[in-house]
């Protein structure tokens, strides 16, 4: 079996992973750093982010305002020490990306331009038209190319973490092109594998977003935090789930029901004004807007199309010039995928699974409880996103906490010995598992696509925008059944060369673990907070649940939930007030 040794191994080549790798290269240039990713880094899902990235840079804004918008948006579930570090370091990280070539939109005098975003008291979102994630990812990736010390393993699929003597010491991965199974040892590993939207049927997430890192950490005994908090973005295109950015609303777009009525005024989100108003109406937070959609649907005031209920997003009054300058991708996507021109027609939209607030439990340095294991980005939960992430915080988060995790992992790695000798035995066990139980398998009965479809259905029915005990209990049982059936999965493809049926089977197993964490965490949180709304427990309950949930993998493979207090520094829990 092939063995490669490095000092810091970053799993995932999206924004957080690349930022972490650069941080290692810059702070500890003697360390050998490697980035391993199941896709080429520029294919990573950061590429799909549209609207922008928040950081305080303008007069009239302040770090405290950014912190307050984040904390109130999160329904007080985020750790305030982490939020304070985040807002403090955000401007410098964003400037650094400007120095690395990111084509930020500019004011006429050449300074950075900012736009408003949902849930914010002032405008502070930096943007590169409405392809911000794309430009950030490519700027980061191209910048990594100048560091010879950063070695890449492109199109390698990680199957397990290697843990010995109480610390994480590397991974086993399959080189997709050849099927070669490779052990990579490291003194520190950083998981930057992104989210897990694909556990749901209708999502903005790319096909690669299967919660790989969350499941890897969970299987290695690391807790995964706040997994019941799933963000629905209020404006996705029906059928494809393609995201129509919040910027369409922050530039002045309206949400209209079937009667052409701006229905958000009925949900304690303020009064309709012709121009956008901060923290009001269409610029309310994502959880509240998605919940309002469901209520409209219940009142029979939504429209119905071939792919279910929808409402209209109207940007026609902005005019062609503003649309082409500020939200050109919205026009491109609508023309290409729906065959409508937003300059002349209204855009059909509905809420769509978008982002996972929860993730691998880390401290504010990106360290997990398992020595040597770090995490950053959507895969991690620091936590700054709490019960509902503020739009445009996630792109900034990958920079701030990618850098923090990179520095902390490098400092840790610099102090460690080489991997222990028994690590190779573990890697060989994993090789046997992959070959004997999957690659050479014959006679399985269950189709991957069938199991995935059943998982999708049960997740949508139980863990969507509104939840209740009975459906969640049923879902927990169903997921247990799917786990058992997944052991009897049928694989037709026995090739070692770019075997995407094998990776689909492995991804399904990751998603089933993640789905169980979501459902169990949602079942045990008997309150409503942010994106987690229980119809049988409609109130927020700070007494019992101003706490993070931690999902541990129990002996029998099911999740066991524990709780951890939230860190409050300067903003005691209050009411979330929007539109007034």
């Amino acid at each position, binding site marked *: 079996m092939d063995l490669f040794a490095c000092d810091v191994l970053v799993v995932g080549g999206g924004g957080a992973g690349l930022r972490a790798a650069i941080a290692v290269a810059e702070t500890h240039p003697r360390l050998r750093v490697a980035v391993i990713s199941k896709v080429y880094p*520029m294919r990573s899902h950061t590429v799909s982010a549209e609207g922008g990235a928040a950081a305080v840079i303008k007069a009239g804004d302040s770090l405290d305002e950014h912190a307050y918008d984040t904390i109130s948006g999160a329904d007080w579930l985020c750790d305030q020490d982490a939020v304070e570090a985040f807002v403090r370091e955000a401007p410098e990280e964003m400037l650094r990306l400007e120095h690395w070539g990111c084509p930020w939109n500019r004011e006429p005098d050449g300074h950075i331009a900012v736009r408003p975003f949902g849930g914010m008291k002032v405008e502070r979102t930096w943007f590169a038209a409405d392809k911000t994630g794309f430009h950030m990812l490519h700027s980061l990736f191209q910048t990594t*190319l100048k560091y010879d010390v950063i070695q890449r393993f492109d199109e390698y699929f990680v199957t397990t973490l290697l843990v010995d003597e109480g610390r994480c010491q590397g991974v086993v991965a399959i080189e997709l092109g050849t099927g070669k199974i490779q052990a990579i040892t490291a003194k520190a590993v950083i998981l930057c594998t992104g989210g897990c939207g694909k556990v749901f049927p209708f999502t903005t997430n790319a096909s690669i977003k299967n919660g790989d890192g969350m499941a890897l950490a969970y299987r290695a005994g690391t807790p995964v935090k706040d997994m019941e908090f799933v963000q629905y973005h209020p404006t996705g295109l029906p059928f494809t789930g393609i995201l129509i950015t919040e910027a369409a609303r922050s530039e002045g777009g309206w949400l209209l029901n079937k009667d052409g009525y701006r229905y958000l005024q009925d949900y304690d989100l303020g009064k309709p004004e012709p121009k956008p108003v901060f923290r009001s109406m269409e610029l309310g937070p994502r959880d509240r807007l998605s919940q309002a959609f469901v209520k409209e649907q219940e009142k029979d005031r939504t429209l119905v199309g071939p792919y279910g209920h929808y409402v209209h997003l109207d940007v026609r009054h902005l005019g062609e010039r503003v649309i082409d300058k500020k939200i050109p991708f919205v026009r491109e996507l609508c023309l290409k995928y729906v065959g409508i021109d937003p300059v002349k027609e209204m855009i059909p939209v509905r809420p769509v699974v978008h982002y996972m607030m929860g993730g691998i439990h880390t401290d504010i340095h990106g360290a997990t409880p398992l020595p040597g294991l770090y995490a950053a980005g959507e895969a991690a939960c620091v936590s700054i996103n709490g019960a509902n992430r503020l739009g445009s915080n996630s792109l900034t988060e990958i920079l701030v906490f990618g850098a923090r995790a990179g520095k902390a992992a490098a400092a840790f790695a610099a102090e460690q010995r080489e991997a222990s000798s028994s690590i190779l035995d573990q890697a060989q066990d994993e090789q046997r598992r992959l070959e004997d139980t999957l690659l050479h398998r014959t006679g399985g009965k269950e189709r991957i696509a069938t199991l995935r479809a059943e998982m999708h259905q049960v997740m949508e029915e139980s863990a969507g925008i509104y939840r209740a005990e009975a459906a969640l209990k049923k879902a927990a049982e169903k997921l247990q059944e799917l786990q058992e059936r997944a052991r009897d999965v049928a694989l037709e493809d026995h090739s070692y060369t770019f075997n995407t049926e094998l990776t689909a089977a492995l991804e399904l197993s990751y998603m089933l673990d993640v789905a169980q964490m979501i459902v169990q965490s949602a079942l045990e949180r008997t309150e409503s907070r942010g994106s987690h709304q229980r119809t049988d427990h409609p109130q927020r309950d700070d007494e019992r649940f101003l706490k993070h949930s931690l999902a541990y993998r129990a002996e029998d493979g099911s999740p066991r939930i524990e709780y951890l207090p939230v860190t409050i520094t300067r903003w005691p829990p209050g009411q979330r007030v929007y539109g007034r």
Partner: protein
Amino acid sequence: MQATVALTVTRYRPERESEPTFQTYEVPFRKDWVVLDALNHIKDNLDGSLSYRWSCRMGVCGSCGMKVNGIPKLTCAAFLSDDLPGPVRVEPLDYFPIIRDLVVDLTDFMRKLTKVKPWIIRKEERPLAEGEYLQTPDQLDAYKQFSMCINCMLCYSACPIYGLEPSFIGPAVIALAQRYNMDSRDQGAAERLEILSGHDGIWQCTFVGECTKVCPKHVDPAGAIQQYKLTGAAHWVKSLLLPWGTR
């Protein structure tokens, strides 16, 4: 409306076949379906062994470029309804070695990408404490178009020069080099000169223009090459010969 459509797809499993063959699948026809949806239908329901790359399904990750009825396209943006009644022929991109089925080897591109130093090069870094480099909207517009490349490889697959001369660094890489050359924050044009003006650089291009035609993001690599030929190269050759001169 027809109920099904035939997809004729390249198969190549190096352990089994000595060269690529074709396999035809009958898939449901749906108005909203793109070629990628049809491939996913095959993978999920008909033949789990078909391999291809895809990810975002919104035309921005650049993974799913293939030839559809002979034309390089993003399969997530190629509607089945454009190729009725079928069959729709789906093949891997031209001029790249095939790894498996519809998956091609990108190693050559990744190597060339690094060669043109696609990052901001400065003689002196401005400290972060001094804030951003100022860049007016006009200065941004000077390179913005060339920054839109998603590395989908369609332009290489369409470029007859790349087909004949595999050492040609190719349209996307030249456009990306020009993206940095034209960026007001960058001072690295001279460092990119040798590779761009050398044997495998811009002078290989005979301005066929196919790259620009197939580009899904309107990057206009042919325009970038032309721009460099006409203005850039001459200017930077001069600045290299006369370093005390215009810059």
